[in-house]
Structure formats: structure tokens, C-alpha cells
């Protein structure tokens, strides 16, 4: 177990204490596991609340701040948070303009956020919910729990967060969030499994010279195992999977995302291949983001997310954001 931890049981609490120390611009309630932007509630503005299992950092806590999330609820590693956290977060950030829950589509997240929404409404908070399900590796059918929420989450949180910051009312923020999700597609590849603190060994065995195609962000095995591929081949496969599903007719924003242990050097090299395929497929790229944003602990690998944008969404993407992990504009 090559981990920089004390004991598995305190990993999340320890991280929150460390986050509190590093980010005076956030209010971190370590006990209750809620990360809130310091100036919340912001009068007259809709507040975005998200959350999910820990282990995907900087998602979601690293996206709390002006222009993005008002609050985040970190669960245990790979375990959705509990409704109490979400209700507290909603209460802490609601200015009266309402709260949008951004929920990644996993059974656990969906159920817990649903319960939280009911409880929050009981407390008089107006709550809307948007489900993020962008992962094309999962067939959305009666025979699955539906597509997973992965890299698309960053787009939903950034763009809907910008709309909220502009003062858009809840229905519009919700509609934009939904629109962004509909225009986002992702595909992920693992070059190694990850190791959860609780298990202490890799979540699946992946022999040297093989990779997993179509992985999620929870260390679960993918849809298919194949002999190792080059960066070029992986880009062909992943971008094709995304483009064939999204069929964009306009420009996209590309997220080339690292799963955690793949060096930035490799991610940039992979981005070169992603851009090449997009060029070959005739997909114009409006913006590109490369880095570790929606991770899976110490997994090596990457994912590609494309978000098709119109002028409005691109403007909201470019709008100022000021969080630990995403910062631009102003």
C-alpha cells in the first residue's frame, strides 16, 4: 500500500482539514463534511451544490468558488455522501433564490440526493436537480443503471455555475445545466487500476501490456480489456466513441482528463492525438482543457470529454471562475 495516509478511516476528514488550511477562501466544515464558498449565501443568486464520493479530486471541492459551485459534499472514498450533508450544504448556500443539485448518475448519488431534495424542500428550500450522465461506455438501457456521470460534470458545474453567478433564475440555471449535460459525452481508458485506502490493493488486476477500455471513475473494470495501445490508437478509439455518440454539428470544448497517475507530459502528448482525430473528423475545437480534473485516485489513464457549445454556452464557459482547481477570467 503506497499511500500517503494515516489510517483508511480518517482519509476524508484529514483531507478536509488540509483543504481548510490551504484555502481560506472556502469554509470547510470537517465534522459535517461540507465545503462552502466563504461568501455564501450570495444574495439573489442561485446556488449550485454538488458532491459525490471522494477520490475524484479536484472534483467537487476544488470547484467551489465564485462562478462555479456554491458548496460540495464529499462522501467517503467512492461512496456517495449522505443526505444530511446535502441538506446542510443547501441550507448554508441558499439565498432564497434556490439551489441546484448537480448529481452524477450513480445509484447511490441519485438516491441520496433525492432524499436530500425532499428534506431540503421540507425546510423551505427550493431545489432543482440535474443528472449528469455523459459516459458513452455504458449503454443507457433498461439493462444498466444508465450512463455514468464523469468528465461532463465539470462542464455542467462550470457553465451552469456561470449562469448562476450572472444572476439567472433557478429554472434557467437548471435548463442550462440540462442542456450542457445533453451535449457532453465522455470515454475513459485505464492503464492501471487504482487502490482504495479501504481495500489497500488494486481494485482490479491489470497485467502489464493490457489496458481497460470504457472505465468509469470508481476503479471498476471497464467494458473490455485489450492489449496495450499507443496514445494515437487510444485517441482514435476514445474520440470516435464520443463523436459517434455526440454527432456534434458545431464546435466543441475538449477536456483531456487524467485519471490521477498519468503525468501531465503524457496528457499533453495525448491531447495532440485527440486534436488530430478531431481535425480528421472535421470537429472544430473552441477550447481545450488538459489536466487532472475528474480523477480516480491513483489510476493511470485518461478520459476524453467533448461538450458541444453554442455561443451562449461558450460565453458562460469563458466567464470568470475562481476556485482552487479552475481559475480564469476577470
Amino acid at each position, binding site marked *: 500500500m503506497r499511500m500517503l495516509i494515516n489510517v483508511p478511516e480518517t482519509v476524508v476528514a484529514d483531507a478536509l482539514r488540509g483543504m481548510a488550511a490551504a484555502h481560506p477562501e472556502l469554509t470547510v466544515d470537517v465534522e459535517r463534511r461540507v465545503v462552502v464558498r466563504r461568501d455564501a449565501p450570495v444574495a439573489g443568486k442561485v446556488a449550485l451544490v454538488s458532491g459525490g464520493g471522494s477520490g475524484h479530486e479536484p472534483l467537487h471541492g476544488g470547484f467551489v468558488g465564485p462562478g462555479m459551485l456554491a458548496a460540495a459534499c464529499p462522501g467517503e472514498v*467512492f461512496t456517495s455522501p449522505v443526505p444530511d450533508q446535502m441538506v446542510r450544504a443547501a441550507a448554508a448556500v441558499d439565498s432564497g433564490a434556490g439551489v441546484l443539485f448537480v448529481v452524477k448518475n450513480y445509484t447511490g448519488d441519485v*438516491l441520496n440526493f433525492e432524499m436530500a431534495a425532499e428534506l431540503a424542500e421540507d425546510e423551505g428550500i427550493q431545489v432543482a436537480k440535474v443528472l449528469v450522465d455523459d459516459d458513452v461506455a455504458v449503454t443507457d438501457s433498461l439493462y444498466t*443503471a444508465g450512463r455514468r456521470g464523469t468528465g461532463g460534470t465539470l462542464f455542467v458545474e462550470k457553465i451552469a455555475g456561470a449562469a448562476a453567478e450572472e444572476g439567472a433564475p433557478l429554472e434557467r440555471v437548471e435548463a442550462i445545466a440540462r442542456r450542457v449535460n445533453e451535449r457532453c459525452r465522455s470515454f475513459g481508458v485505464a492503464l492501471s487500476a487504482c487502490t482504495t485506502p479501504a481495500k489497500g490493493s488494486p481494485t482490479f488486476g491489470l497485467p502489464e501490456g493490457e489496458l481497460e477500455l470504457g472505465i468509469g471513475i470508481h476503479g471498476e473494470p471497464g467494458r473490455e480489456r485489450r492489449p496495450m495501445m499507443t496514445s494515437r490508437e487510444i485517441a482514435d478509439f476514445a474520440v470516435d466513441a464520443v463523436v459517434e455518440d455526440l454527432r456534434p454539428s458545431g464546435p466543441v470544448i475538449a477536456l483531456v482528463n487524467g485519471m490521477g497517475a498519468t503525468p501531465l507530459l503524457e496528457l499533453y502528448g495525448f491531447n495532440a492525438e485527440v486534436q488530430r482525430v478531431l481535425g480528421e473528423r472535421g470537429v472544430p475545437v473552441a477550447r481545450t482543457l488538459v489536466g487532472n480534473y475528474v480523477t480516480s485516485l491513483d489510476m493511470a489513464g485518461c478520459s476524453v470529454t467533448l461538450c458541444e457549445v453554442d455561443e451562449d454556452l461558450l460565453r458562460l464557459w469563458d466567464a470568470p471562475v475562481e476556485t482552487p482547481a479552475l481559475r480564469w477570467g476577470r
Partner: protein
Amino acid sequence: MTQTFDADFLVRWLAAVAEAVDREADRLTELDSAIGDADHGANLKRGFAAVTETLAKDPPATPGAVLTAAGRQLISTVGGASGPLYGTLLRRTGKTLGDDGRVTREQLAEALDSGVTAVSQLGGAQVGDKTMLDALVPAVEGLRDSFGAARSAAEEGALATVPLRARKGRASYLGERSVGHQDPGATSSALLFAALDEIARTEASGAEGAS
């Protein structure tokens, strides 16, 4: 005379579940690692430890209240899919039991049946989807006969998930690759009914001893 069970019986049941889950946590996590995200053991360990603590601190007076409190605690502590699902199972069962100070096995089976229905409604899963329901549904059926029958039915149900292809929960992402693995939630459900049988036996022998 039909045997009846009081709040303390249910507290002892949940304590036995906590012990079993603690003992079997690594196995549950291992199963979840194969087709899920390797947290089921830790989730239930954390949850039932909190349940035990809550019930010890503030012991409810009726069987129904015990289960309702336990369910609430699971919902507030576990997270993931199993938190709301097991939480709802116990909460709904408790609510159905109502305020009676003692309940019969048949009443418990009836109430658990409503709890299991609630789980199915909440998660949208059916028997055969490779979830906890594959153990819970036959277990409740068995409970109408005896604690022992409930236990074996749950164990068989859990084993029967091995050849299934998952249609709900994380394992469904794997498609065909979920075949050949036992569902962690069905396995933990079997632990619930094994513990129930155990406690009922102690109770019975205790009762015999006392009689």
C-alpha cells in the same frame, strides 16, 4: 403459545449484524471490488457500527421504533447505494410494525415484506437483476416458515446471483463481465438473515432454559 419478540430482540439482531459485517467486511469489499467499487464492506461496517451506537445510547421501546431508528441512522451514515436501500428497508419495516411492544415472526415477515417492496420501488430493481433483492425477496418468503428457512433462502439467493448478468447498480456497467461474480449486496443481505436466525436460536434456547 406463539413466540413474540421485543425491542431488545431487534437490538440484539442489529448488534449481531454489526458483528457479522465487521467480520466479513473484507469479503464484502472483495466481492464489490470484482464488479463494483470496493467499498461495500467499509460502508456497512461504518453504518452498522453507528446503528449499534445509536441504539445503545438511546434504546427505543418498541421493535418498530428500533428498526426505524436504525434505518434513519443507516441513511445518515452510509451513503452509496446501500445506505438509502438498507436504510429504507429497515425504516419501512419499522414503520409497518407500528407501535406494538412485541411482535411475532409472522408480523416481522409481513413488515419486512413491505420493507423489501420499498427497496424495490426506490431502486427500481427486481429479483434477477443481481442485487440485494435476490437475497431479500426469498428470505422474507422463507421467514413466513421459520428463521432457519429465511436464512437458507437468503444464502441460496445470494449464491444464485453468481451466474446472473447485473441490470442495476454499478455491476451493470460491466455488462457480460458481471457474470460469474456474487453480488456483494445480496451477500450482505444473507448476513442479515443469518444473524436473525442466530439471535432467534439464542432467544429460543434462552426461552426454553427459562421455561
